[in-house]
């Protein structure tokens, strides 16, 4: 238990940061650039932490901290094998704090970014919930623990739900075409969106939160592929990496969509994938 908590607290941000670093290198190579060193995200955060703290108001930083704390809590709960729905609820709470942080900034950019972030949550949340429901339906429990005891990984029973989850992960990770609320590149019409008003420590916290988010999202993928077989447990990690690579490719291939389309597409995908998969489950 303590080992797992330690894993969640220390290994996860490192892994998340490394993934973010890899992301930047791969993206750069796709654009025929060299790209920054692998550890660049860590350098960035360290630099941000050393900056003089300025803020537009006195409450924004509270929400940033809250968001980080509850994201960490969600990851800890997930890694210790707790109820999957509880993890998702904690995660949603963190996301809500993040949105409120954006609202509290109150410049047009962060305000609109917050609204868009909220729409992005509305796009992906149903699918995440349904994925958890499907997990319960197949494994008979909400406890994440049971996936390590399954004879066959969930993907064999829930292929369509997994595809739906893949789709919304792009939205969750704010990858193009769904980087509506903030983009990692400062070329957006709303500047840096929800994080426009953040500097220094607050921005560093948002970065770290994002590392945790990456791992949380990939852990959901992991759950679909892991089983009691040892080789699956290793293979699932590589599948997660492959999924993340796919996300990077998608990020670089697509142009940003309008929020209306994002909402419609994601809800249609969620509805069709989940309904079809549940019907198939019922028939089997």
């Amino acid at each position: 238990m303590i080992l797992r908590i330690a894993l969640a607290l220390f290994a996860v941000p490192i892994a998340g940061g490394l993934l973010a670093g890899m992301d930047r290198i791969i993206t750069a190579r796709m654009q025929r650039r060299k790209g920054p060193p692998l550890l660049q995200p860590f350098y960035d955060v360290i630099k941000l932490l050393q900056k003089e703290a300025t803020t537009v108001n006195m409450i924004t930083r509270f929400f940033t901290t809250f968001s980080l704390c509850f994201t960490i809590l969600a990851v800890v709960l997930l890694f210790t094998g707790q109820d999957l729905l509880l993890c998702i609820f904690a995660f949603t709470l963190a996301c809500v704090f993040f949105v409120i942080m954006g609202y509290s900034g109150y410049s047009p950019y962060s305000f609109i970014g917050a609204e868009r972030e909220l729409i992005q949550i509305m796009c992906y949340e149903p699918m995440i919930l349904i994925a958890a429901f499907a997990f319960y339906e197949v494994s008979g429990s909400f406890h994440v623990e049971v996936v390590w005891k399954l004879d066959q990984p969930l993907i064999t029973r829930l292929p369509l739900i997994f595809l739906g989850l893949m789709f919304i992960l792009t939205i969750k990770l704010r990858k193009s075409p769904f980087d509506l609320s903030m983009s990692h590149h400062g070329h957006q019409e709303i500047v840096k969106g929800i994080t426009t008003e953040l500097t220094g420590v607050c921005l560093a916290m948002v970065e770290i939160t994002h590392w945790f988010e990456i791992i949380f999202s990939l852990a959901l993928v992991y759950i679909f592929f892991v089983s009691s077989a040892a080789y699956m447990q290793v293979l699932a990690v590589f599948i997660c990496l492959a999924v993340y690579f796919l996300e990077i490719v998608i990020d670089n291939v697509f142009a940003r969509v309008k929020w209306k389309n994002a909402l419609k597409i994601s809800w249609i995908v969620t509805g069709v994938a989940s309904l079809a998969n549940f019907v198939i489950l019922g028939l089997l």
Partner: protein
Amino acid sequence: MLGLLLGLPVLAALFMLLFKKQRQIAILTRACASLVIALSITFCVLNYNKTLIIDLSFQHWLPYATLLLEVLISGFIIYKAIVHKSVLLCLLTGLSILLSIGYEFLYKDKTEVSQTIFIDKLSLLMILIIGVIGGIICIYAVEYMKDYHRHNPEIPDRRNIFFTVMFLFLAAMFGIVITNQLSLLLLCWEISSLASFLLIGYTKTPKAVKNSFTAIQTNVFGGLLFTVGLVLLGVNGIADFRSLVSSNGSLTVSIAVFLLSAAALTKSAQFPFSGWLLGAMVAPTPSSALLHSSTMVKAGVYLLLRLSPMLGSNVSGITVTMIGGVTFLAAAMMAVSQTDSKRVLAHSTISNLGLIIACVGIGTPEAIWAAIMLVVFHAIAKSLLFLSVGSTSHQLGSRSIEDMDGLIGISKQLTIFLIIGIAGMFIAPFGMLIAKWAAMRAFLDSGNFLIVIIVAFASTITMFFWTKWLGKLIANAHRIKPTSYVMRGDEKVSLYSLAALVIIICLLHPLVSSSFIEPYINSTTTDSFPPPIEPVASAIIIGMLCLIFILPLILYPIYHKFSVKQTSLYLSGENTGDDESFYGGMGQVHRVELRNWYMQGIFGEEFWLRKSVYLGAGILIAGFFAVIGGHVV
């Protein structure tokens, strides 16, 4: 003791009519409301360890008294209907009272009920909800109504009538949750319909009158369905819940259960019957709070809870579940498009009741547990929200959410109450979410996948419209101006106690479960029933709640120590310096105005309201024919 509990609100109501001076009314209301709260708590403590059963069948006057009261109520409604030339209402009421009279005389001997009053843990819990929350709302109303009449001098001051009806309402609700005999329940049912009619029509503006007639028509229609169900049960010699639940499922009984469920749907404002609750928003806020949180709409839920052993995987159960699911989703979508805070609350009430009713329709112990939890949390958080919105609208002079970004400058307390109320409605680790969590599990276990998918979408939309309201409350927080508004006694007491309740009941939810809900469920089912939320999960939830309150305490001194430089907002370099305006293209100064999203194109009320009413009606009619057809085939 029971007589006192029932009699006090009735007496309070009657006394209120005698007084004309506002001071006297205020004092009387405060006293009676506090007494109601104290009495309901004492009653629960004293009767906690037993199931109270009282036989009143030897009181031969009781049926006649019931009938007389029903005739009086119907007479009043018919009189009102004639004055306002509503033929439909006349017909419905007339039909319903004729049926009641016929029932009383034809089936009098067949329908002797030995357990007139039956008070188990569910009734006790309901008494607590009605008494405590209803009482708090009455206390709040004292100051509110004073302000209300000061702000709206054109409305005739009939405060004594207002408080009479409020207390009558409480009495009727107490009646509903303690009787076992269906005809008595019908009487209280009609009283609450009448009370809601009077409250909605209080201001006597044309709109209020129109909406009050919508309400009474819907509720009288529900009463008619109830009466037909009662007569059908009378044919089978059933006149109370206890024998109904243990009866066999013959055709007439199934139809009767279906009709009673449909009657419950009218009270709980489910589609296709939800129009009246939206119209009820014209009433002064405390009465809306009463209708929405602890009384009116919960009467329907209570009836369904009592019927729940007859629901489940049969046609009635599936119909109720589906209507609940559709209502949950459709009302949540419509809530997104509303700018009027009271209307958002109305839609969210309908939506939450949809979830509760979907749970009851499932009928498994787990689902019933979730439903009762939802009732408890919803009653507390919703009444807090209504009362806060009431005070807010008096302070801002507007009910629009768009104007609420200035609220924190006027009253920090009110903003915090609104935030607590909103958090209590949808987010972990607060109450509604705990219950919803169990509900999700129950839906999954029932194998109804359609409802599972509906719940996933509806929960998300619920989160959306609450969060954007929350955002609006916090958005302007850095421009805090000195507080210009001081909360007064009654307001303060009621708002503080409700806000405290939201948090305390969240912390104590395992206790609520183990002392009320689990014993009740164990008394209705033979299977052993573990509470759906495991102790570990409960502990984590409580831990999260504590974290939310402890974190700021830890952070505040740290942040205080490392003071930061405050800078101005990024307005593309054109900030005039006050964060509220910027230089436009020709150098002129523009104000920054930020508006929320209401997405009329996707979630527009006009578009969805009609569709969901048709869908609800369709499900109901299909269910009705399926109930008949299932037995014929």
